């Protein structure tokens, strides 16, 4: 199949404006005749639901949460980028575009990214008008900070809770449309399948998580805003419920899955403390501005420290290895996320890790406390230090923090064209659910930007183009495809309930996470990936023969919910491995050990891999088909990163 | 008129009634206390009787007495109505373990209980003093002459002095002041909060005033009967003293 990205012709800066003019419009009087289903009510979903309802479409919004305000967008701490240039420091739409393309290691589409940078300025206007309480200067104007190594100050923020405030803004806009009757809200409803009628997305099958009832919902178009799949690793900074089921079900119904192996690892997370660990907590990477990363210089010292025979303070200065400062004198502790993460892993692999598990490195603030005082540190990082103390029970003012990398964001996702439409007509994907804007690596403070750009300013235009070409006839669930899809879902649920084995969903999930983290995590190699593929296949067989569930499917059954999600992760995990195996280069979040510079840096292969790998489902237990969308860089020159 | 009824039947509206009437009742307590303190003067009750006569005859005060009564009734009615409504809002199943003492003050959680205790006291109290002086009930008041007035006035002082020689009545009175103290401890500051008068500059002062007010007012109210009970200096005129004592023990309403 030839992938048509539908990128408009013309100069980069004019593409979006031209496209907005060229798309077909739905007559205002006809808009109420169209129904749109939106799955997910995080930033991308809630903003799309509100905006489409405001235009006059009938929206049905679905969330598995008890309220649309709980999506994991809420947990984003740092901020949201926008090319406002309020600070007069040389920012521009083009610079944000350039930084995003370069940060993504040249694996994103120029046109999409440029549009993202363009609408970024509208997002801030929109959110302020909604009453989002962004940080302000004393003069009453908006404050900015620099973020993620950007050379300009373009990040808008609301203390450490930017995601929360932006989501509550979108939630309030959504709530207003619910009150007007333009959005019908389905909470505690999980999408378990997509319904495709004559090749077009026409509805979804959901399970009511309170009653267990399987329901059919029809619409003229379906938007998936269901987030990322970082929980395939079991432990990640994602919320516990985050899952890939909606996207994966759509994939199996014909939507291509793009670049699944592009996952982002965040270097400053609180380390795992035991087998019982259920999730990982991220701390803002701003900590690396003042903290120094180190491990004991020798394996023996590290071992004695782990056993509790010596204390941190017993380790002399010369016995400490400030490995980032040593290896990257120019950037020191501020090297990009992937470099910092890989080096931490390397130290632990060498047996020099700290903490009970040996899977952590120190982030030490002793120097800055000595230099500027604890008060200064508290002013700047107080809430992060408190959070760390609450979780670990240790006082980071007195002893160094322990940190370790964790899975944080997935750049891959459903393949979409310039209109955010997947390969199934009428099915759209927005936010982290799609693959489009971050290439192989996402810049800090760009996830919130993309989710809102898609929902507020892209999908309202592009979905109209599709709907205008669809007859405004009522859609119903009468087509046999609905019954079939419902029967499939029902059979799947029954199958899960009836295995009656011995292992719990979490048990399988942890085993999967272990395989993924070990072989498809921070560093990958062909041999490991092949091994992992076999392991996952074995695990999947075990899952379908040894899963244990109790209760019934006709009631609230959280273990059943979890089992369904793990089943899909077990399939997606294998595709991630296939993708990582196929991509014989290192770029962004994808580091193949075979492809590195003599200094150990990622080595891209632009000649052979400047493409989007879009995988096509080809039947159960069949290898997926690889489709390639070549990426054309007409405006930026591809260069190799260097942080020496 | 529907917006008015709607306003005052809303949860905030009801609380407004509680706050306004409550704070108004606080102002009444101050006046009442100042007059009660006159009893402690060693003048055989002359000052007290003078002010009692003033309160009973001044047209403005008589009008305010009606307002006061209506306010009191509104406070009682709304208080009970809110207690019922709030109980219903809690739902059928109570917590098996609830340590509310770790997140709030006892007085704040028990305003309805404290209010009910005060209501019981008030019934006894009103029958004893107010009904007798206003409506000539239960034998009415003996007449005495006080300085600066050219006509005789009711000898309310003797009724009080006689009552304050009865141990159980003094005990009831004094203990009720503890309930009053706790009720004011929460009620005073709470009234301001309900009226929206919360400001980081002034709220600490309102809290302090409220705590001071509740302790001082209730303590002084309680001290008066105790002093009059233990001191020989405060005696009723013999004739009325017997009447009071009889009425307190024989009136059916008081059993």
């Amino acid at each position, binding site marked *: 199949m030839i992938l048509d990205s539908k990128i408009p012709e013309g100069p980069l800066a004019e593409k979006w404006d031209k496209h907005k003019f060229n798309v077909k419009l739905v007559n205002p009087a006809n808009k109420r005749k169209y129904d749109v289903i939106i799955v997910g009510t995080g930033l991308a979903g809630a903003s799309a639901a509100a*905006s489409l309802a405001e235009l006059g479409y009938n929206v049905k919004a679905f969330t598995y949460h008890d*309220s649309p305000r709980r999506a994991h967008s809420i947990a984003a701490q740092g901020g949201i980028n926008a090319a406002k240039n309020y600070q007069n420091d040389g920012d521009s739409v083009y610079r944000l575009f350039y930084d995003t393309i370069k940060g993504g290691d040249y694996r994103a589409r120029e046109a999409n990214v440029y549009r993202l940078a363009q609408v970024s300025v509208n997002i801030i206007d929109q959110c302020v*008008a909604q009453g989002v309480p962004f940080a302000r200067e004393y003069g009453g104007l908006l404050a900015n900070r620099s973020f993620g190594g950007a050379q300009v100050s373009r990040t808008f923020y609301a203390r450490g809770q930017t995601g929360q405030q932006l989501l509550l803004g979108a939630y309030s806009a959504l709530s207003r449309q619910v009150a007007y009757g333009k959005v019908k809200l389905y909470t505690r409803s999980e999408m378990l399948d997509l319904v495709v009628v004559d090749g077009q997305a026409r509805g979804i099958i959901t399970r009511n998580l309170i009653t267990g009832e399987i329901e059919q919902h029809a619409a003229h178009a379906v938007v998936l805003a269901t987030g990322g799949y970082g929980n395939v690793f079991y432990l990640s900074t994602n919320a516990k419920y985050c899952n890939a089921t909606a996207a994966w079900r759509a994939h199996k119904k014909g939507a291509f899955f793009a670049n699944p192996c592009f996952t982002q690892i965040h270097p400053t997370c609180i380390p795992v*403390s*035991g087998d019982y660990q259920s999730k990982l907590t991220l701390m803002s990477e701003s900590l690396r501005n003042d903290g120094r990363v180190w491990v004991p210089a020798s394996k023996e010292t590290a071992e004695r420290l782990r056993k509790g025979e010596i204390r941190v303070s017993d380790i002399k200065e010369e016995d400490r290895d400030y490995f980032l400062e040593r290896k990257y004198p120019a950037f020191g502790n501020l090297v990009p996320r992937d470099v910092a993460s890989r080096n931490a892993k390397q130290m632990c692999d060498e047996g020099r890790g700290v903490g009970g598990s040996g899977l952590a490195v120190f982030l030490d603030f002793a120097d800055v406390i000595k230099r500027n005082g604890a008060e200064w540190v508290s002013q700047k990082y107080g809430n992060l230090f408190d959070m760390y103390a609450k979780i670990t029970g240790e006082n980071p003012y007195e002893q160094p923090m322990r940190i370790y990398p964790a899975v944080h964001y997935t750049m891959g996702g459903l393949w979409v064209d310039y209109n955010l439409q997947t390969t199934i007509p009428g099915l759209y994907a927005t936010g982290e659910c799609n693959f489009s804007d971050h290439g192989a690596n996402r810049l800090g403070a760009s996830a919130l930007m993309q989710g809102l750009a898609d929902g507020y300013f892209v999908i309202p235009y592009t979905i109209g183009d599709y709907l205008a070409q669809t007859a405004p006839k009522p859609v119903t669930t009468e087509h046999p495809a609905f019954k079939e899809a419902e029967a499939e879902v029902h059979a799947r649920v029954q199958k899960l309930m009836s295995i009656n084995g011995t292992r719990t969903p*979490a048990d399988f999930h942890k085993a999967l996470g272990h395989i993924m983290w070990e072989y498809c995590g921070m560093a990958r190699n062909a041999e490991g990936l092949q091994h992992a593929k076999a392991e996952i296949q074995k695990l999947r067989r075990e899952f379908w023969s040894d899963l244990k*569930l109790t209760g019934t499917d006709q009631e609230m059954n959280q273990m059943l919910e979890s089992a369904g999600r793990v089943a899909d992760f077990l399939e997606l995990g294998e595709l991630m491995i296939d993708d990582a195996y196929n991509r014989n280069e290192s770029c962004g979040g994808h580091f193949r050990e075979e492809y590195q510079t003599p200094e150990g840096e990622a080595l891209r292969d632009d000649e052979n891999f400047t493409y989007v790998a879009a995988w096509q489902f080809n039947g159960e237990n069949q290898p997926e088909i690889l489709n390639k969308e070549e990426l054309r860089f007409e405006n930026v020159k591809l260069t190799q990163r260097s942080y020496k | 008129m529907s917006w008015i009824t709607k306003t005052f039947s809303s949860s905030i509206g009801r609380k407004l009634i509680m706050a306004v009437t409550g704070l108004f009742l606080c102002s009444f307590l101050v006046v009442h206390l100042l007059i009660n303190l006159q009893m402690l003067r060693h003048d055989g009750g002359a000052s007290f009787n003078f002010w009692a006569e003033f309160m009973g005859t001044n047209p403005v005060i008589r009008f305010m007495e009606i307002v006061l009564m209506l306010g009191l009734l509104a406070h009682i009615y709304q208080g009970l109505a809110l207690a019922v409504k709030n109980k219903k809002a809690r739902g059928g199943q109570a917590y098996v373990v609830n340590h509310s003492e770790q997140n709030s003050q006892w007085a704040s959680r028990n305003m309805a209980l404290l209010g009910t205790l005060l209501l019981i006291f008030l019934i006894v109290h009103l029958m004893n003093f107010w009904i007798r002086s206003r409506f000539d009930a239960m034998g009415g008041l003996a007449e005495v002459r006080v300085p600066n007035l050219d006509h005789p006035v009711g000898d309310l002082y003797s009724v009080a002095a006689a009552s304050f020689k009865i141990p159980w009545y003094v005990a009831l009175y004094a203990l009720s002041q503890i309930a009053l103290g706790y009720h004011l401890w929460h009620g005073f500051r709470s009234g301001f909060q309900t009226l929206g*008068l919360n400001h980081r500059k002034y709220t600490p002062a309102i809290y302090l005033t409220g705590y001071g007010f509740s302790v001082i007012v209730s303590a002084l109210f309680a001290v008066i009967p105790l002093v009059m009970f233990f001191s020989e200096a405060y005696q009723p005129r013999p004739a009325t003293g017997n009447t009071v004592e009889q009425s307190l023990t024989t009136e059916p309403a008081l059993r």
Partner: protein
Amino acid sequence: MAGSNPNAKPMNLTLKVWRQRNRNTAGSIVDYQVKDISPDMSFLEMLDVLNEDLLRQGEEPVAFDHDCREGICGSCNLFINGRAHGPEAGTTTCQLHMRKFSDGDTITIEPWRSAAFPVNKDLSVDRSAFDRIIQAGGYISINTGGTPDANEIPIPKDIADRAFEAATCIACGACVASCKNSSAMLFVSAKVSQLALLPQGHVERKTRVENMVAQMDKEGFGACSNIGSCAAECPVGISLENIAIMNREYINAKATSNNLA
């Protein structure tokens, strides 16, 4: 695998957990034993351990609400030993750690109890009443697009900061759960005062407070009697000052709006 403190001793605990099949059936406390609980576990991870054990034994795990497990989504909502979110101040259930408990402790775990929060199952409750209150007016009525430049309206920093503090409410419902009157005033007032403080919210300030209070009453929440347990138990520290602001807004709206209904 040892955690941060290699000397931390695992604990054995007795859990008294509220079990209830669904909202139409009666519930009761059921006792469970959990063993080898690490002090480094979060409270919810301890419940995970219980649930894994129950499932392996063929029993039904305990249903409870949770998601982000980093204290921000507002999903988790357990009444632990007589306190909303347990004994630690300023902490959601998911951020409460087992080091706050001791070996041999008995821990009673109940759902939020309020007529407006019916129990779904076990410890999970239905808080959709909160959503309906926001739907009644917890927004600024502007459509997407056509908004003025974000710097068009300067907002004094202290006003922006106070609005932010009110806006940090996570809608967990601890205020309602711990209030003797089951009042939702802290939750509602946080939104009312956030939008009343900001100039963008001034246009609708009267109708907003009127409608949100009306919906709050309709949902069956009790009236505030300024007890203060809500603010004491609020995991994000929403201040009682917001309730005073809402009272003020309400009085002003009722006295001066053109709304005769």
